[in-house]
């Protein structure tokens, strides 16, 4: 792999992050002239927490954060602070910094969504590959249509369905039917000291429904893609020759079949990481999961644009990184790309 190749990929990474940051800076500000600080003050005044000098406070805020300056100056000011690693302060939850908010929320999203996407990918790819291969077990052939039916259903609809089945008591449910938590990432009011088994179990229980809604809606997608790729691969001359050389069937399936069929799937996986941006906001919102999605949702609702910027910036960096990693790793998993690299 040449330095030029790596340089070009990293350059592309920086360009993408910068462009996306710029778009996301101007878009909400041009689209709306809401003033979150004033809104906050009005609310405080309405509840009697602020009686006089509201305009003064608003003006002080705006001066402090440079909000009274022209937009392009704010943009330069924002960019330079981002470069210094400062994502400013939440306008609504003053004085909590955006960085603190993100650090608090990020692990939950990574855990829930990252895990769900990877599980869906693994399950879907493996079952899709098996289905395309001669001698696939019959039960698997029966299961795939179910997942295919589920895949066009939006995951948040699936979430409601799961809540209806597993979080609401019905007469038809037998005694042992599990009732799963539907809100939060752990039990409300419990304060844990470090990570013990009880806490892990609590977190896992809380993640079952949101994770299932993502996994169930995604498995069919991965399985279908993999099945198609695997059927093509099974017809390749190198698979036929491997059979005629009397290689072990599991080796042909794994190292000659799946190993090749998986390559395009990995590209899709890197792109699917963008689901963390777009897809899961509603799942987190429905299940009140304390992740980036619900943070972004609340920020948009309150027009807390520094938080919007911060969250989106992190997500952009995340997706760009996934793509960068794929670009850098791909030559290692597909030797044919190495020469071009």
């Amino acid at each position, binding site marked *: 792999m040449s330095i030029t190749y790596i340089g070009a990929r990293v350059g592309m990474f920086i360009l993408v992050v910068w462009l996306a940051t710029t778009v996301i800076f101007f878009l909400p500000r041009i689209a709306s002239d809401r003033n979150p600080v004033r809104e906050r003050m009005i609310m405080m005044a309405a509840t009697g927490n602020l009686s006089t000098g509201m305009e003064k406070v608003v003006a002080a805020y705006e001066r402090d954060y440079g909000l009274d300056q022209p937009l392009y100056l704010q943009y330069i000011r924002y960019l330079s602070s981002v470069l210094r690693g400062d994502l400013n302060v939440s306008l609504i939850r003053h004085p909590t910094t955006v960085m603190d908010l993100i650090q608090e929320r990020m692990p939950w999203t990574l855990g829930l969504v990252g895990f769900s996407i990877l599980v869906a990918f693994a399950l879907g790819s493996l079952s899709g590959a098996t289905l395309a291969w001669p001698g696939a077990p019959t039960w698997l052939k029966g299961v795939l249509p179910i997942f295919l039916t589920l895949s066009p259903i939006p995951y948040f609809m699936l979430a409601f369905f799961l809540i209806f089945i597993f979080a609401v008591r019905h007469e038809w449910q037998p005694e042992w039917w599990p009732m799963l938590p539907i809100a939060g990432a752990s039990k409300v009011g419990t304060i844990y000291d470090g990570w013990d088994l009880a806490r892990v179990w609590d977190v896992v229980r809380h993640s079952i429904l949101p994770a299932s809604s993502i996994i169930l809606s995604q498995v069919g997608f991965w399985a279908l893609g993999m099945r198609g790729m695997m059927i093509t691969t099974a017809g390749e001359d190198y698979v*036929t020759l491997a059979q*005629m*050389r*009397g290689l072990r069937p599991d*080796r042909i399936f794994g190292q000659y079949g799946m*190993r*090749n069929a998986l390559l395009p799937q990995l590209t899709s996986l890197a792109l699917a990481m963008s689901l963390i941006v777009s897809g899961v906001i509603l799942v987190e919102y429905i299940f009140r999961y304390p992740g980036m999605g619900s943070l972004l949702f609340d920020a948009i609702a309150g027009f807390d644009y520094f938080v919007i910027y911060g969250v989106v910036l992190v997500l952009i960096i995340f997706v760009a990184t996934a793509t960068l990693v794929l670009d850098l790793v791909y030559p290692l998993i597909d*030797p044919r790309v190495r020469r071009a690299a």
Partner: protein
Amino acid sequence: MAEPVLTIRDLRVYFNIRAGTVRAVDGVDLDIAEGEKLGLVGESGSGKTTTALAIMRMIKPPGEIAGGTISLDGRDLVELSEPEMRSVRGNDIAMVPQAAMNALNPVRRVRDQMLDGLRDHGVNESRNRMQDRLTTLMAQVGLNANVLDLFPHELSGGMKQRVTIAMAICHNPRLILADEPTSALDVVVQRQVMETLEDVRSEIGAAVILVGHDMGLMAQFADRIGVMYAGKLVELATVEQIFANPRHPYTRLLISSLPDTDGKKRLQGIPGLPPSLLAVPPGCPFMPRCPEAMDICGVEAPELIGDIDIVSCHLHTETRVA
């Protein structure tokens, strides 16, 4: 004649498709002697490749071996279970494939793919011994040992075909099936590859069935040539016999369709098309295209007659003494 390595009797391979049954191979008898080189020629769809695949038991649905026996050293391959057959493939019978361009796994190094073949047939020796084996195999097919460390896309077409030959000989098979091994190569490389194949063949003393339609190539390589038409063997004789005195009209036409080196003769084709294998007409399948067809040809299918020199044609009713 020496004890045959492979004996095929009444081999029938049928493909059951919606439109009916395609009789791709319909009653083929063949004997291949130890170390013999047999050429199998015929136009597309004549059943030559299907015969080779049937020997490997690689006929895939909707195709099936509908009848007959394929005995390798007295063992009927048709009766073997799939795991038993797997140990025959690559071990007793090896394949040199047609499309070497794509016959190697693009993401595995040549070394690993060669090792797969050794390990999966129970060869498990020390690293050094395995390495020595691979180096020897590479040398046998005229390749440098550093090819082992390359990926398939880094090899030329001829090199890839040599690798497949090295793979084929790694277990000293009794029989090598070569299905148009040079059809994707240019003529210079073709010759080199065929020479390599002949060298390693004589080294390990394997018999070879060379499938193809290149009569010129066959003339140079084979001891005997079998001519197939519409799923049947129509003539089987030594190379000299076939070229000097072809007996079946189809064989005659095949040979006269070869280009003339003087370049004076106009190229001649064989008019017409082979019959649909879904419904082969009664009588001789070649009759509609045969310049010498007689009344009986449309009524009664000719039988294969002869012992060493075999033909199936109503023009020949007597066994020729070889």
